[in-house]
Protein backbone atom coordinates (compact mmCIF):
# COMPACT_ATOMS: atom_id res chain seq x y z
CA UNK A 1 0.00 0.00 0.00
CA UNK A 2 1.58 3.26 -1.06
CA UNK A 3 1.30 6.51 0.83
CA UNK A 4 -1.37 7.92 -1.51
CA UNK A 5 -3.62 4.89 -0.98
CA UNK A 6 -3.05 5.05 2.76
CA UNK A 7 -3.88 8.75 2.73
CA UNK A 8 -7.12 8.15 0.84
CA UNK A 9 -8.14 5.38 3.25
CA UNK A 10 -7.18 7.52 6.21
CA UNK A 11 -9.25 10.43 4.96
CA UNK A 12 -12.21 8.14 4.26
CA UNK A 13 -11.93 6.69 7.76
CA UNK A 14 -11.79 10.16 9.24
CA UNK A 15 -14.84 11.26 7.28
CA UNK A 16 -16.77 8.20 8.43
CA UNK A 17 -15.90 8.99 12.03
CA UNK A 18 -16.81 12.63 12.08
CA UNK A 19 -19.32 13.23 9.31
CA UNK A 20 -22.67 14.31 10.75
CA UNK A 21 -25.39 11.71 10.36
CA UNK A 22 -28.45 12.45 8.30
CA UNK A 23 -31.37 13.40 10.50
CA UNK A 24 -33.98 10.79 11.25
CA UNK A 25 -36.90 12.73 9.81
CA UNK A 26 -40.21 11.19 8.80
CA UNK A 27 -41.31 14.49 7.28
CA UNK A 28 -39.03 16.84 5.41
CA UNK A 29 -39.87 20.53 5.79
CA UNK A 30 -38.14 23.68 4.61
CA UNK A 31 -39.02 27.35 4.73
CA UNK A 32 -38.65 29.93 1.99
CA UNK A 33 -39.04 33.67 2.52
CA UNK A 34 -40.67 33.94 -0.89
CA UNK A 35 -44.28 35.01 -1.16
CA UNK A 36 -46.63 32.09 -1.60
CA UNK A 37 -47.55 32.55 -5.27
CA UNK A 38 -43.94 32.97 -6.30
CA UNK A 39 -42.84 29.99 -4.22
CA UNK A 40 -45.59 27.81 -5.67
CA UNK A 41 -44.53 28.75 -9.17
CA UNK A 42 -40.86 28.21 -8.33
CA UNK A 43 -41.32 24.78 -6.83
CA UNK A 44 -43.02 23.54 -9.98
CA UNK A 45 -39.97 24.61 -11.97
CA UNK A 46 -37.65 22.95 -9.48
CA UNK A 47 -39.64 19.70 -9.60
CA UNK A 48 -39.40 19.77 -13.39
CA UNK A 49 -35.65 20.33 -13.13
CA UNK A 50 -35.42 17.12 -11.09
CA UNK A 51 -37.36 15.19 -13.75
CA UNK A 52 -40.64 15.11 -11.86
CA UNK A 53 -43.94 15.92 -13.52
CA UNK A 54 -46.50 17.98 -11.65
CA UNK A 55 -49.74 16.01 -12.00
CA UNK A 56 -52.04 18.59 -10.49
CA UNK A 57 -52.41 21.09 -7.66
CA UNK A 58 -55.15 20.78 -5.08
CA UNK A 59 -56.45 24.00 -3.57
CA UNK A 60 -57.10 23.07 0.06
CA UNK A 61 -57.46 26.75 0.92
CA UNK A 62 -60.16 27.20 -1.71
CA UNK A 63 -62.06 24.16 -0.44
CA UNK A 64 -61.88 25.37 3.15
CA UNK A 65 -62.94 28.89 2.20
CA UNK A 66 -65.86 27.53 0.17
CA UNK A 67 -66.99 25.76 3.31
CA UNK A 68 -66.79 28.97 5.34
CA UNK A 69 -63.41 28.49 7.04
CA UNK A 70 -60.74 31.18 7.19
CA UNK A 71 -57.30 30.08 6.07
CA UNK A 72 -54.21 31.43 4.44
CA UNK A 73 -52.81 29.89 1.24
CA UNK A 74 -52.57 26.09 1.40
CA UNK A 75 -52.03 23.97 -1.71
CA UNK A 76 -50.90 20.41 -2.33
CA UNK A 77 -48.69 19.76 -5.34
CA UNK A 78 -49.04 16.19 -6.66
CA UNK A 79 -45.98 15.07 -8.56
CA UNK A 80 -44.15 11.99 -9.76
CA UNK A 81 -42.39 10.23 -12.60
CA UNK A 82 -44.63 8.21 -14.91
CA UNK A 83 -42.18 5.32 -15.43
CA UNK A 84 -41.68 4.88 -11.68
CA UNK A 85 -45.39 5.06 -10.90
CA UNK A 86 -46.21 2.65 -13.71
CA UNK A 87 -43.50 0.13 -12.82
CA UNK A 88 -43.91 0.19 -9.04
CA UNK A 89 -47.70 0.07 -9.09
CA UNK A 90 -47.26 -3.27 -10.89
CA UNK A 91 -44.51 -4.72 -8.72
CA UNK A 92 -45.63 -3.10 -5.45
CA UNK A 93 -49.35 -2.28 -5.72
CA UNK A 94 -49.38 -1.51 -2.00
CA UNK A 95 -47.51 1.72 -2.88
CA UNK A 96 -50.36 3.08 -4.98
CA UNK A 97 -51.83 5.28 -2.18
CA UNK A 98 -48.52 7.15 -2.14
CA UNK A 99 -48.81 8.06 -5.85
CA UNK A 100 -48.51 10.73 -7.00
CA UNK A 101 -46.34 12.13 -4.21
CA UNK A 102 -47.77 15.00 -2.23
CA UNK A 103 -45.91 18.20 -1.46
CA UNK A 104 -47.77 20.47 0.96
CA UNK A 105 -47.12 24.15 0.19
CA UNK A 106 -48.47 26.56 2.78
CA UNK A 107 -48.12 30.17 3.76
CA UNK A 108 -46.87 31.22 7.15
CA UNK A 109 -46.98 35.00 7.26
CA UNK A 110 -44.70 36.28 4.52
CA UNK A 111 -42.91 32.93 4.26
CA UNK A 112 -43.84 29.75 2.47
CA UNK A 113 -43.26 26.27 3.86
CA UNK A 114 -42.88 23.00 1.98
CA UNK A 115 -43.45 19.58 3.56
CA UNK A 116 -43.21 16.10 2.09
CA UNK A 117 -43.08 12.58 3.51
CA UNK A 118 -39.57 11.17 3.68
CA UNK A 119 -39.79 8.01 1.53
CA UNK A 120 -36.72 6.35 3.04
CA UNK A 121 -38.32 6.49 6.49
CA UNK A 122 -41.31 4.58 5.16
CA UNK A 123 -39.30 1.46 4.26
CA UNK A 124 -40.09 -0.44 7.49
CA UNK A 125 -43.78 0.42 7.11
CA UNK A 126 -43.85 -0.93 3.58
CA UNK A 127 -41.93 -4.14 4.33
CA UNK A 128 -39.65 -2.92 1.59
CA UNK A 129 -37.46 -5.43 -0.22
CA UNK A 130 -33.92 -4.43 -1.14
CA UNK A 131 -34.86 -2.96 -4.50
CA UNK A 132 -37.73 -0.93 -3.07
CA UNK A 133 -35.63 0.25 -0.13
CA UNK A 134 -33.03 1.52 -2.58
CA UNK A 135 -35.71 3.28 -4.61
CA UNK A 136 -37.06 4.94 -1.46
CA UNK A 137 -33.59 6.24 -0.64
CA UNK A 138 -33.24 7.61 -4.16
CA UNK A 139 -36.56 9.44 -3.77
CA UNK A 140 -35.45 10.84 -0.42
CA UNK A 141 -32.32 12.22 -2.05
CA UNK A 142 -34.39 13.67 -4.88
CA UNK A 143 -36.87 15.27 -2.48
CA UNK A 144 -34.05 16.74 -0.40
CA UNK A 145 -32.51 18.13 -3.58
CA UNK A 146 -35.82 19.77 -4.50
CA UNK A 147 -36.20 21.26 -1.02
CA UNK A 148 -32.57 22.39 -0.98
CA UNK A 149 -33.11 24.13 -4.30
CA UNK A 150 -35.99 26.01 -2.76
CA UNK A 151 -33.65 27.14 -0.01
CA UNK A 152 -31.00 28.18 -2.51
CA UNK A 153 -33.65 30.26 -4.22
CA UNK A 154 -34.44 31.70 -0.80
CA UNK A 155 -30.81 32.83 -0.35
CA UNK A 156 -30.78 34.30 -3.85
CA UNK A 157 -33.83 36.39 -2.99
CA UNK A 158 -32.45 37.57 0.36
CA UNK A 159 -29.34 39.00 -1.18
Amino acid sequence: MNRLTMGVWGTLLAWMLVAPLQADEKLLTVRSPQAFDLALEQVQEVLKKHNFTVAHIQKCDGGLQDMGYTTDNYKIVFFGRLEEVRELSKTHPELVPLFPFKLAVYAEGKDTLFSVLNPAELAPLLNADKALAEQLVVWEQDFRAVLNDMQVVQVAHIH
Partner: protein
Amino acid sequence: MKEWLRSCLAVVLLATVSNTYSADGRALFTQHCSACHGEAGAGGIGLPLSAPTVMHSLTDDYLRKTIRSGRPGRIMPAFEQLTAAEVEALVHYMRGWGEAKVEESVLPLAGDAVRGKPLFEHYCASCHGQDLSGGEGTGVTFSRARDLPIMPPALNNAGFLQAASDGMLRYIIQQGREGTPMPSFATTLNATQIDDIIAYVRTRESDTSADVSPPESLTIMYSVEGTFDETVDRVREAIRSNNFRVFPDRFVEEGLTDEFSVNKRQISLRFCNFSKLYEALKVEPRLGVILPCTLTVIEQEDGSVKLVAANVTALAKLFNNNQLDEVFAHIKASYDTVLDEVTF
Protein backbone atom coordinates in the same frame (compact mmCIF):
# COMPACT_ATOMS: atom_id res chain seq x y z
CA MET B 1 2.58 0.17 9.32
CA LYS B 2 3.24 2.40 12.34
CA GLU B 3 3.68 5.32 10.00
CA TRP B 4 0.34 4.51 8.35
CA LEU B 5 -1.41 4.34 11.71
CA ARG B 6 0.15 7.63 12.75
CA SER B 7 -1.03 9.19 9.49
CA CYS B 8 -4.56 7.91 9.97
CA LEU B 9 -4.68 9.09 13.58
CA ALA B 10 -3.42 12.51 12.59
CA VAL B 11 -6.04 12.82 9.87
CA VAL B 12 -8.79 11.65 12.24
CA LEU B 13 -7.71 14.13 14.93
CA LEU B 14 -7.41 16.92 12.41
CA ALA B 15 -10.85 16.19 11.01
CA THR B 16 -12.38 15.96 14.50
CA VAL B 17 -10.91 19.26 15.60
CA SER B 18 -11.89 20.85 12.33
CA ASN B 19 -15.47 19.57 12.68
CA THR B 20 -15.73 20.81 16.24
CA TYR B 21 -14.72 24.33 15.44
CA SER B 22 -16.32 24.60 12.05
CA ALA B 23 -19.85 23.88 13.32
CA ASP B 24 -21.73 26.91 12.10
CA GLY B 25 -24.66 27.64 14.42
CA ARG B 26 -26.49 29.80 11.94
CA ALA B 27 -26.19 27.23 9.16
CA LEU B 28 -27.27 24.46 11.53
CA PHE B 29 -30.25 26.53 12.65
CA THR B 30 -31.26 27.10 9.04
CA GLN B 31 -30.87 23.41 8.28
CA HIS B 32 -32.60 21.91 11.30
CA CYS B 33 -34.69 24.56 13.03
CA SER B 34 -35.77 27.39 10.73
CA ALA B 35 -38.57 25.46 9.02
CA CYS B 36 -40.51 25.48 12.29
CA HIS B 37 -38.93 28.29 14.34
CA GLY B 38 -38.52 30.77 11.47
CA GLU B 39 -35.38 31.84 9.67
CA ALA B 40 -34.51 34.43 12.33
CA GLY B 41 -36.17 32.55 15.18
CA ALA B 42 -39.36 34.59 14.83
CA GLY B 43 -41.48 31.50 15.36
CA GLY B 44 -43.96 29.49 13.35
CA ILE B 45 -44.86 25.90 14.04
CA GLY B 46 -42.34 26.31 16.85
CA LEU B 47 -41.86 28.87 19.63
CA PRO B 48 -40.56 32.35 18.66
CA LEU B 49 -37.11 31.81 20.14
CA SER B 50 -35.70 35.17 19.17
CA ALA B 51 -38.11 37.08 21.39
CA PRO B 52 -35.68 38.44 24.05
CA THR B 53 -37.90 37.57 26.99
CA VAL B 54 -38.02 33.99 25.74
CA MET B 55 -34.25 33.64 25.62
CA HIS B 56 -33.89 35.38 29.00
CA SER B 57 -35.93 32.58 30.54
CA LEU B 58 -34.14 29.64 28.92
CA THR B 59 -30.90 28.19 30.24
CA ASP B 60 -28.24 26.74 27.97
CA ASP B 61 -28.80 23.37 29.60
CA TYR B 62 -32.52 23.57 28.77
CA LEU B 63 -31.71 24.37 25.14
CA ARG B 64 -29.24 21.47 24.90
CA LYS B 65 -31.67 18.97 26.41
CA THR B 66 -34.53 20.21 24.26
CA ILE B 67 -32.50 19.85 21.08
CA ARG B 68 -31.37 16.37 22.12
CA SER B 69 -34.67 14.97 23.41
CA GLY B 70 -37.31 17.04 21.63
CA ARG B 71 -40.92 16.96 22.78
CA PRO B 72 -42.47 13.50 22.56
CA GLY B 73 -45.87 13.80 20.91
CA ARG B 74 -45.57 17.55 20.25
CA ILE B 75 -43.95 17.86 16.79
CA MET B 76 -40.48 18.94 18.04
CA PRO B 77 -38.22 16.00 17.10
CA ALA B 78 -35.21 14.72 19.04
CA PHE B 79 -32.00 15.68 17.23
CA GLU B 80 -30.00 12.77 18.56
CA GLN B 81 -27.83 12.69 15.46
CA LEU B 82 -26.20 16.08 16.08
CA THR B 83 -22.69 16.08 17.53
CA ALA B 84 -22.00 17.78 20.85
CA ALA B 85 -20.15 20.50 18.95
CA GLU B 86 -23.15 21.09 16.71
CA VAL B 87 -25.51 21.36 19.66
CA GLU B 88 -23.15 23.86 21.31
CA ALA B 89 -22.96 25.85 18.08
CA LEU B 90 -26.75 25.98 17.92
CA VAL B 91 -27.04 27.09 21.54
CA HIS B 92 -24.34 29.72 20.98
CA TYR B 93 -26.17 31.02 17.89
CA MET B 94 -29.54 31.21 19.66
CA ARG B 95 -27.94 32.88 22.66
CA GLY B 96 -27.26 35.81 20.36
CA TRP B 97 -30.97 36.64 20.65
CA GLY B 98 -30.78 37.23 24.38
CA GLU B 99 -28.75 36.33 27.44
CA ALA B 100 -29.96 33.86 30.03
CA LYS B 101 -31.18 35.54 33.18
CA VAL B 102 -31.91 32.30 34.98
CA GLU B 103 -29.46 30.70 37.35
CA GLU B 104 -28.29 27.32 36.04
CA SER B 105 -28.95 25.69 39.43
CA VAL B 106 -30.80 22.42 39.03
CA LEU B 107 -31.46 21.96 42.74
CA PRO B 108 -35.08 20.92 43.15
CA LEU B 109 -37.32 23.31 45.03
CA ALA B 110 -39.17 22.12 48.12
CA GLY B 111 -42.74 22.86 47.07
CA ASP B 112 -45.86 20.99 48.12
CA ALA B 113 -47.75 19.46 45.19
CA VAL B 114 -50.97 19.11 47.16
CA ARG B 115 -51.01 22.84 47.90
CA GLY B 116 -49.90 23.55 44.34
CA LYS B 117 -52.82 21.78 42.63
CA PRO B 118 -55.56 24.34 43.43
CA LEU B 119 -53.14 27.18 42.73
CA PHE B 120 -52.36 25.72 39.30
CA GLU B 121 -56.05 25.23 38.57
CA HIS B 122 -56.79 28.82 39.54
CA TYR B 123 -53.90 30.66 37.89
CA CYS B 124 -52.51 28.44 35.12
CA ALA B 125 -55.09 25.96 33.85
CA SER B 126 -57.04 28.43 31.72
CA CYS B 127 -54.10 28.59 29.31
CA HIS B 128 -52.08 25.42 30.00
CA GLY B 129 -55.15 23.21 30.45
CA GLN B 130 -56.48 21.32 33.46
CA ASP B 131 -54.49 18.33 32.26
CA LEU B 132 -51.40 20.51 31.62
CA SER B 133 -51.41 19.48 27.95
CA GLY B 134 -51.08 23.06 26.76
CA GLY B 135 -52.85 24.95 24.01
CA GLU B 136 -54.29 23.55 20.84
CA GLY B 137 -51.37 23.47 18.42
CA THR B 138 -47.84 24.68 18.92
CA GLY B 139 -45.85 27.87 18.52
CA VAL B 140 -47.52 30.61 16.55
CA THR B 141 -49.42 30.56 13.30
CA PHE B 142 -50.12 33.25 10.82
CA SER B 143 -52.35 31.14 8.65
CA ARG B 144 -55.39 30.29 10.70
CA ALA B 145 -57.32 31.99 13.46
CA ARG B 146 -56.32 30.81 16.93
CA ASP B 147 -57.25 31.73 20.45
CA LEU B 148 -53.81 33.05 21.43
CA PRO B 149 -50.90 34.52 19.44
CA ILE B 150 -48.49 31.99 20.95
CA MET B 151 -49.77 28.64 22.10
CA PRO B 152 -49.03 27.76 25.75
CA PRO B 153 -46.68 24.78 25.94
CA ALA B 154 -47.64 21.36 27.29
CA LEU B 155 -46.27 21.44 30.83
CA ASN B 156 -46.83 17.73 31.30
CA ASN B 157 -44.56 16.83 28.39
CA ALA B 158 -41.72 14.60 29.52
CA GLY B 159 -39.24 16.35 27.22
CA PHE B 160 -40.15 19.72 28.68
CA LEU B 161 -40.05 18.62 32.30
CA GLN B 162 -36.73 16.82 31.90
CA ALA B 163 -35.17 19.87 30.23
CA ALA B 164 -36.53 22.60 32.53
CA SER B 165 -34.97 23.09 35.95
CA ASP B 166 -37.12 24.19 38.88
CA GLY B 167 -35.17 27.44 38.91
CA MET B 168 -36.08 28.10 35.31
CA LEU B 169 -39.77 27.41 35.93
CA ARG B 170 -39.73 29.71 38.95
CA TYR B 171 -38.13 32.50 36.88
CA ILE B 172 -40.76 32.17 34.11
CA ILE B 173 -43.66 32.24 36.58
CA GLN B 174 -42.21 35.24 38.40
CA GLN B 175 -41.15 37.24 35.35
CA GLY B 176 -43.59 36.08 32.70
CA ARG B 177 -42.66 36.59 29.08
CA GLU B 178 -43.33 40.07 27.82
CA GLY B 179 -44.73 40.02 24.32
CA THR B 180 -46.35 36.62 24.88
CA PRO B 181 -49.59 35.66 26.65
CA MET B 182 -47.54 34.50 29.70
CA PRO B 183 -48.00 37.14 32.43
CA SER B 184 -45.76 37.83 35.41
CA PHE B 185 -47.04 36.41 38.70
CA ALA B 186 -44.44 38.24 40.78
CA THR B 187 -47.07 40.33 42.58
CA THR B 188 -49.79 37.68 42.54
CA LEU B 189 -48.05 34.65 43.98
CA ASN B 190 -45.43 34.48 46.72
CA ALA B 191 -42.30 32.32 46.46
CA THR B 192 -43.83 29.43 48.41
CA GLN B 193 -46.92 29.35 46.22
CA ILE B 194 -44.80 29.34 43.07
CA ASP B 195 -42.73 26.47 44.43
CA ASP B 196 -45.94 24.59 45.25
CA ILE B 197 -47.18 25.02 41.67
CA ILE B 198 -43.86 23.73 40.33
CA ALA B 199 -44.05 20.73 42.64
CA TYR B 200 -47.54 20.00 41.32
CA VAL B 201 -46.46 20.34 37.69
CA ARG B 202 -43.63 17.87 38.38
CA THR B 203 -46.18 15.25 39.46
CA ARG B 204 -48.07 15.43 36.17
CA GLU B 205 -45.47 14.19 33.70
CA SER B 206 -47.31 12.32 30.96
CA ASP B 207 -46.46 8.75 30.09
CA THR B 208 -44.22 8.76 27.05
CA SER B 209 -42.92 5.23 27.28
CA ALA B 210 -41.88 4.07 23.86
CA ASP B 211 -44.41 2.26 21.71
CA VAL B 212 -42.93 -1.23 21.46
CA SER B 213 -45.60 -2.66 19.19
CA PRO B 214 -44.29 -3.71 15.77
CA PRO B 215 -44.80 -1.09 13.07
CA GLU B 216 -48.02 -1.48 11.15
CA SER B 217 -48.02 -1.54 7.38
CA LEU B 218 -48.52 1.91 5.86
CA THR B 219 -51.13 0.69 3.41
CA ILE B 220 -53.75 -2.04 3.36
CA MET B 221 -54.77 -3.93 0.25
CA TYR B 222 -58.11 -5.75 -0.06
CA SER B 223 -59.15 -8.28 -2.68
CA VAL B 224 -62.69 -7.51 -3.72
CA GLU B 225 -65.45 -9.40 -5.49
CA GLY B 226 -66.90 -7.97 -8.67
CA THR B 227 -65.57 -6.12 -11.65
CA PHE B 228 -63.41 -3.01 -11.60
CA ASP B 229 -66.32 -0.74 -12.60
CA GLU B 230 -68.67 -2.29 -10.05
CA THR B 231 -66.09 -1.80 -7.31
CA VAL B 232 -65.51 1.84 -8.23
CA ASP B 233 -69.27 2.46 -8.08
CA ARG B 234 -69.57 0.71 -4.71
CA VAL B 235 -66.69 2.68 -3.19
CA ARG B 236 -68.03 5.98 -4.53
CA GLU B 237 -71.49 5.24 -3.12
CA ALA B 238 -70.07 4.23 0.27
CA ILE B 239 -68.07 7.46 0.51
CA ARG B 240 -71.10 9.59 -0.41
CA SER B 241 -73.35 7.82 2.06
CA ASN B 242 -70.95 8.69 4.87
CA ASN B 243 -71.36 12.44 4.35
CA PHE B 244 -67.95 13.26 2.95
CA ARG B 245 -67.28 15.98 0.42
CA VAL B 246 -66.35 13.93 -2.64
CA PHE B 247 -63.77 15.23 -5.12
CA PRO B 248 -63.74 14.20 -8.79
CA ASP B 249 -62.13 10.79 -9.35
CA ARG B 250 -58.60 10.79 -10.72
CA PHE B 251 -56.62 8.12 -12.49
CA VAL B 252 -53.42 7.42 -10.57
CA GLU B 253 -51.35 8.37 -13.63
CA GLU B 254 -53.52 11.38 -14.52
CA GLY B 255 -51.44 14.46 -15.13
CA LEU B 256 -48.25 12.41 -15.39
CA THR B 257 -49.00 11.47 -18.98
CA ASP B 258 -51.46 12.37 -21.71
CA GLU B 259 -55.09 11.30 -21.55
CA PHE B 260 -54.63 8.63 -24.21
CA SER B 261 -51.76 6.86 -22.45
CA VAL B 262 -53.09 6.99 -18.90
CA ASN B 263 -53.91 3.67 -17.21
CA LYS B 264 -57.67 3.86 -16.72
CA ARG B 265 -57.77 0.76 -14.53
CA GLN B 266 -56.28 2.59 -11.53
CA ILE B 267 -58.71 5.10 -10.05
CA SER B 268 -58.33 7.16 -6.89
CA LEU B 269 -61.59 8.09 -5.17
CA ARG B 270 -60.88 11.13 -3.05
CA PHE B 271 -62.90 12.66 -0.26
CA CYS B 272 -62.68 15.02 2.67
CA ASN B 273 -64.41 16.19 5.82
CA PHE B 274 -63.58 19.89 5.83
CA SER B 275 -64.61 20.43 9.43
CA LYS B 276 -62.11 17.80 10.61
CA LEU B 277 -59.51 19.06 8.15
CA TYR B 278 -59.75 22.57 9.54
CA GLU B 279 -59.40 21.33 13.11
CA ALA B 280 -56.44 19.15 12.16
CA LEU B 281 -54.58 21.90 10.29
CA LYS B 282 -54.76 24.10 13.38
CA VAL B 283 -52.64 21.58 15.30
CA GLU B 284 -50.61 20.15 12.39
CA PRO B 285 -50.00 22.34 9.35
CA ARG B 286 -47.92 19.61 7.67
CA LEU B 287 -50.95 17.37 7.29
CA GLY B 288 -51.16 18.08 3.55
CA VAL B 289 -48.48 15.43 2.92
CA ILE B 290 -51.16 12.74 3.35
CA LEU B 291 -54.22 14.55 1.98
CA PRO B 292 -56.85 14.03 0.80
CA CYS B 293 -58.45 10.83 2.10
CA THR B 294 -58.21 8.41 -0.79
CA LEU B 295 -59.29 4.90 -1.68
CA THR B 296 -57.75 3.49 -4.83
CA VAL B 297 -59.24 0.75 -6.98
CA ILE B 298 -56.83 -1.07 -9.27
CA GLU B 299 -57.28 -3.86 -11.76
CA GLN B 300 -54.19 -6.01 -11.98
CA GLU B 301 -52.85 -7.70 -15.11
CA ASP B 302 -54.53 -11.00 -14.14
CA GLY B 303 -57.89 -9.24 -14.00
CA SER B 304 -58.18 -9.30 -10.21
CA VAL B 305 -59.48 -6.16 -8.54
CA LYS B 306 -57.89 -4.67 -5.43
CA LEU B 307 -58.90 -1.86 -3.16
CA VAL B 308 -55.90 -0.11 -1.61
CA ALA B 309 -56.12 2.26 1.34
CA ALA B 310 -53.71 4.09 3.58
CA ASN B 311 -53.47 2.64 7.09
CA VAL B 312 -54.57 5.59 9.21
CA THR B 313 -53.02 4.17 12.38
CA ALA B 314 -49.61 3.99 10.72
CA LEU B 315 -49.97 7.45 9.16
CA ALA B 316 -50.73 8.97 12.55
CA LYS B 317 -47.35 7.87 13.89
CA LEU B 318 -45.44 9.86 11.27
CA PHE B 319 -46.23 13.23 12.85
CA ASN B 320 -45.03 13.02 16.50
CA ASN B 321 -48.16 14.95 17.37
CA ASN B 322 -50.59 13.37 19.81
CA GLN B 323 -52.98 16.28 19.40
CA LEU B 324 -53.93 14.60 16.14
CA ASP B 325 -55.06 11.43 17.89
CA GLU B 326 -58.72 12.43 18.01
CA VAL B 327 -58.82 13.50 14.37
CA PHE B 328 -57.03 10.35 13.23
CA ALA B 329 -59.41 8.22 15.31
CA HIS B 330 -62.31 9.87 13.50
CA ILE B 331 -60.69 9.38 10.09
CA LYS B 332 -59.97 5.74 10.89
CA ALA B 333 -63.57 5.12 11.93
CA SER B 334 -64.75 6.70 8.68
CA TYR B 335 -62.35 4.62 6.57
CA ASP B 336 -63.40 1.48 8.42
CA THR B 337 -67.08 2.18 7.78
CA VAL B 338 -66.53 2.76 4.07
CA LEU B 339 -64.23 -0.25 3.73
CA ASP B 340 -66.69 -2.48 5.60
CA GLU B 341 -69.45 -1.47 3.21
CA VAL B 342 -67.32 -2.25 0.18
CA THR B 343 -65.43 -5.36 1.24
CA PHE B 344 -68.15 -7.36 3.03
